[in-house]
């Protein structure tokens, strides 16, 4: 097939096939994983890279953090182990947050794919592990060294032989070794599935190399993104937001230079890191920025490195959006999620029709304690705030923005945690008013029925700085945590006594357009749907 030029039909078919190969890898991961974050929340990604380590296909289901971190990871892996030194059966791993996804829970597993003795592509799988030692999934650490096992870039398999020393090292450093190693091996199966499928496809299509296809995929995507960028007027766009950072607050600043068909994003002016695990390593910041721009420019196209080529991202080292060790980062999402609305907000005046107002974000809590029968208990709970409104669409209630974890059903969560969910209801009047209303958040009441004290680790945001409205829309309500009807701090550790009720009030999304333009009929409908409590909106 390489003898002749690939025509549009060939490309469309082969392109989709590469994506479906990564989707097949993802399906196997979800079904074998031990981590609720993987299977309920799809905290995973599977990717294919070409010989130049350009990402050419990515599984459709994943969360935004993986949009741009993997190319950084693979570049470092190949710098340490250059392609010419690799053999069939090598599998390289790393969970280093600085070159990865920003926290050590995520392990990247990479395998070079050999065909007739030569590398034709690379497969990579990343998942959130159930544990990595240290202080658990919380912001409790003050240095990265408290956060658990940091693996260097290392060969888990060399020419098909597993490095049992590395396995032993992991086993001795985590709380639930069987589950962690089970998940590591699920990633290994995944890259093997991807590799086998790719080789089958190349045989079938008669491709000796992926280069012409990769060039076409990257080239077409890049030109579509460039065309979308070119349609935005040349200018410097700026925005800033304030975020809560434990006992302090931080200002995030972005400045976007738009010239012709390129964008240069600079986060200079952003405040410094804090001594809590909410600092954001640069790859995560970059991912969120690229993700935001993809939503704005070419939301319907599959993601690959072509989408990122016209865009550069800079943040000064040491600022809270470019954390370096020893700054801890386990809960980097608490700050990192703000990058998305920060970027979108910069374009408010020029392309409002392509934006969404900021959302109320997702709340992530970790609970540790003992069940009534004495068994140890550890659980993670997600509760979404409201989504921001668009220029012609209300924000969806209780739908995550910036990230995309799903919720755990009450009937699954109760036996898992020993908590009783007394109530899970819409939170009226929490969505920002507007011609198009922001999505309302929710109120969840959790009662500690274990008979034992229970520690709750919270990394909540939107507790001081609401989701702003756009184009005259009102902000959403703030997030609040209460115990037995008394407010408690929203970032840090809190102990629930037996019988205590933890009340979570989730933040609303911002509205779009002036509220007085909303029709009476729609307001009546809002009341009937429980979005608004009274005619006051």
């Amino acid at each position, binding site marked *: 097939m390489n003898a002749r030029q690939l*025509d549009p039909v060939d490309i469309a078919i082969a392109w*989709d096939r590469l994506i*479906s190969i990564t989707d097949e890898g993802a*399906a196997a991961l979800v079904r074998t*994983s031990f981590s609720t974050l993987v299977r309920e929340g799809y905290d995973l990604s599977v990717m294919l890279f070409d010989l130049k380590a350009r990402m050419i296909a990515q599984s459709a289901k994943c969360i935004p953090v993986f949009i741009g971190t993997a190319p950084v990871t693979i570049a470092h892996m190949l710098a340490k182990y250059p392609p010419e030194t690799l053999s069939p059966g090598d599998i390289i791993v790393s969970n280093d947050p600085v070159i990865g996804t920003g926290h050590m829970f995520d392990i990247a597993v990479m395998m070079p794919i050999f065909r007739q003795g030569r590398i034709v592509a690379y497969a990579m799988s990343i998942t959130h592990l159930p544990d990595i030692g240290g202080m658990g999934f919380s912001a409790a650490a003050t240095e990265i060294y408290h956060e658990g096992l940091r693996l260097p870039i290392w060969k888990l398999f060399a020419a098909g032989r597993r490095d049992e020393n590395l396995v032993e090292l992991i086993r001795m450093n985590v709380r639930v070794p*069987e589950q962690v190693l089970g998940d590591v091996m699920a990633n290994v199966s995944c890259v093997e599935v991807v590799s086998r499928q790719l080789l089958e496809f190349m045989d079938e299509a008669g491709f000796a190399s992926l280069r012409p296809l990769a060039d076409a995929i990257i080239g077409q995507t890049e030109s*579509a993104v460039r065309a979308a960028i070119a349609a935005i007027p040349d200018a410097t766009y700026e925005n800033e937001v304030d975020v809560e950072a434990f006992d302090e607050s931080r200002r995030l600043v972005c400045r976007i230079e738009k010239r012709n068909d390129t964008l240069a994003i600079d986060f200079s002016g952003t405040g410094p890191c804090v001594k809590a695990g909410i600092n954001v390593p640069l790859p995560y910041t970059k991912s969120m920025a690229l993700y935001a721009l993809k939503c704005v420019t070419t939301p*319907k196209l599959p993601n690959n490195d072509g989408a990122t080529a016209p865009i550069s991202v800079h943040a000064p080292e040491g600022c809270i959006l470019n954390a370096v060790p020893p700054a801890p980062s386990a809960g980097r999402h608490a700050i990192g999620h703000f990058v998305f609305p920060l970027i979108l907000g910069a374009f408010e005046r020029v392309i409002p029709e392509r934006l969404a107002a900021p959302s109320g974000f997702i709340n992530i809590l970790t609970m540790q304690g003992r069940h009534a029968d004495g068994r140890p208990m550890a659980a993670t709970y997600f509760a979404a705030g409201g989504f921001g409104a*668009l220029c012609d669409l209300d924000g969806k209630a209780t739908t995550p923005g910036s990230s995309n974890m799903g919720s755990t*059903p009450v009937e699954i969560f109760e036996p898992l945690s020993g908590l009783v969910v007394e109530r899970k209801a819409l939170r009226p009047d929490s969505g920002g008013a507007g011609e198009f209303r922001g999505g309302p958040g929710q109120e969840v009441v959790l009662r500690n029925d274990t008979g034992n004290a229970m520690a709750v680790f919270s990394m909540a945001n939107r507790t001081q700085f609401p989701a702003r409205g756009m184009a005259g829309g009102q902000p959403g309500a703030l997030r609040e945590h209460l115990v037995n009807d008394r407010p408690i701090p929203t970032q840090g550790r809190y102990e629930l006594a037996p019988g205590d009720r933890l009340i979570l009030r989730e933040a609303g999304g911002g509205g779009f357009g002036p509220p007085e333009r909303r029709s009476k009929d729609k307001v009546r409908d809002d009341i009937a749907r429980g979005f608004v409590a009274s005619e006051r909106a």
Partner: protein
Amino acid sequence: MLRTCAVSRHSHQVRQVADGTAGTLRLGIDIGGTFTDFALVNRDGARVAVHKQLTTPHDPAEAVLEGTRAILAAADLSLVDVAEIVHGTTLVTNALIERRGGRTGMLVTRGFRDLFDIGKEQRYDLFDLRLQYAEPIVPRRMREEVSERLRHDGSVMEPLDEQSVRDAVTRLVEIEKVDALAVCYLHAYANDAHEIRTREIVRALHPELYVSTSADIFPFMREYDRWMTTCANAYAQPLVDSYLSRLDDGLKDLGFSGSFWVIGSSGGLMPPEVARRYPVRLLESGPAAGVLMSARFGRELKQENILSFDLGGTTAKGALVRHGEPLRKYTFEAAHVYEYRSGSGLELQIPVIDMTEIGAGGGSLVWLDELGRMRVGPKSAGAEPGPVCYARGGTNATLTDANLVLGYLDADFFLGGRMKLDAAAAATAIRTGIGTTLGLEAARAAWGIHDIANENIARAFRMHATERGFDYRSCGMIAFGGGGPIHAARIARKLKIPLVIFPAGAGVMSAFGMLSGAQSFEVMRAFPRALDGLSEQEFSRALEAVEEEASSFLLASGVPSAAVRKNRRVDMRYRGQGYEIEVPLPDDLTSAERLKALPGLFAERYRQVFRAELGEALEVVSLKIAAMGPAPQSFTTGMKPAAGVDTALKGHRPAYFPSRRGLVDCPVYARERLVPGATIEGPALIEEAESTCLLDSGDRARVDEHYNLIGEIGVGS
């Protein structure tokens, strides 16, 4: 539980058949989007007649009754000669799509009225900020909270407040005028006492209300899914009840006194009384019947593993048959509201034949995406206006137009010549719509459309099979539906499937499938237990309870207890995982052996699916029992050729075969003239009135003794 409530009328019907007061014929009726199909077979297992009738969407019963009259009249028969009618319908699917169900109220555990508005708290597309979600079936003002609460182990945390039930129902009936009610309480799968008591209270107050309780409809953990399914069931009840009554009356008026069955989503036959009670189990009932037929062909042809491939007017459907049995699952998403996207519909928990369905049918529209890449489907031209070549006002090229331009369809022999196609208009639409933009001539563009559809279908099937650990490369494909036989050989080639079976009667295969279903009912119960703490006695007792429940309905409809077969499956996983795999229990194990066998059976299945073994502790999640009546008598779907025709070759026409570098003068055969033992080498087209088989260069087919065409793919290349 009241599963056996009203099946006595049916056992009366069975006796009538036995007495010989009714006839001996069996009639299968499948309502599809465009056509309602009929298939008639006799007691000797011979095909008597087939028929296609335009569907009447305003009242589907009309086409059913009209077509029933027509097929019998043409064969010089009457309904008195018919012993049994098996029926499949899209009524429930359409009611959910068009929101034409009953006025439905909901009673729900206090604190959880807003669950449907809160949703699953996840976006189904990461980049698209404009996502839309299906509206809840029951509007919020028609949901009322009731004071009661159970724990996850079924124990009572707060007793049912009966007065709160009465107050809620009174308001829903008097103010909201509901005619159906869904009762949805937390943890009801573990204990249904509060739901049952609520139903009693409602019955006493308002005996005319249709009531569905969540533990009865689908006793499954995960409240959002269970409640959604319960609401859908209540919503469909008034509609299905009145439809089945109209049909029943109409058939009686025509003189029918035999037994009447409705086929469910899982392929099991239900008497009308059960269908009225569980109408949500009628979703996808027609396509399920086609898969049953594939399974039957597979068994007869000694092909244990089958990929069943059905291509109709709007979609292509694939299903897997392993060791002669269709794979099943327990989730089905209906009524998508945003670009046919998975996640934008109503996710319902019902036992269904596990099918993958993609928007690639004859009517699928061709378009260019924002990169200028050619796309086929999922939007469809439907029956109105239909493909351009139907000359009924369509202007946008479709897959059928491409197949016509490529020479695979004969403009003068569509539906046996009953419908003339406009080939020139099809070519123009492809040239102007796509070809010019891409700089491709009509034939090359049409090939692109055909091949993209094949690739989309192959990809969906590959995904579907891989997720289920099914090695499609060694299975056989069975191709049917109006368009399946044109695409099958090439899709098989992409999937490395060596064998494609083109059954006789492929165009009305689902109607035939109705007649190969057995009576059956499936019950699933949550049974979360760590395997190491589970006693043999507890396990056996739990299995027996579910078995008893599943068989009770068959026994009540007159199936002798000795004839009831039971299929036992256990959902298991490594402790800590969130998804389970289904472990079938072999029939030959004694109840004492079953528990001991579980670890070995699980390890074997897990290795097959994920090529790994972890050595972790195991847990049981749920028990599933399907109780089945005896399989109906077998029949053939082919017809003996009329005597006196010595050649099946009808002639030649130009058709596009890239394997032969473009247009070739392709031989065309008449399917009804092929005799057993005949062989055909590709490239070739084999036509019958309802469908056309395509063999590519290198493929070879022979006709078996039942007039099925057995294609070997790529043997000559």
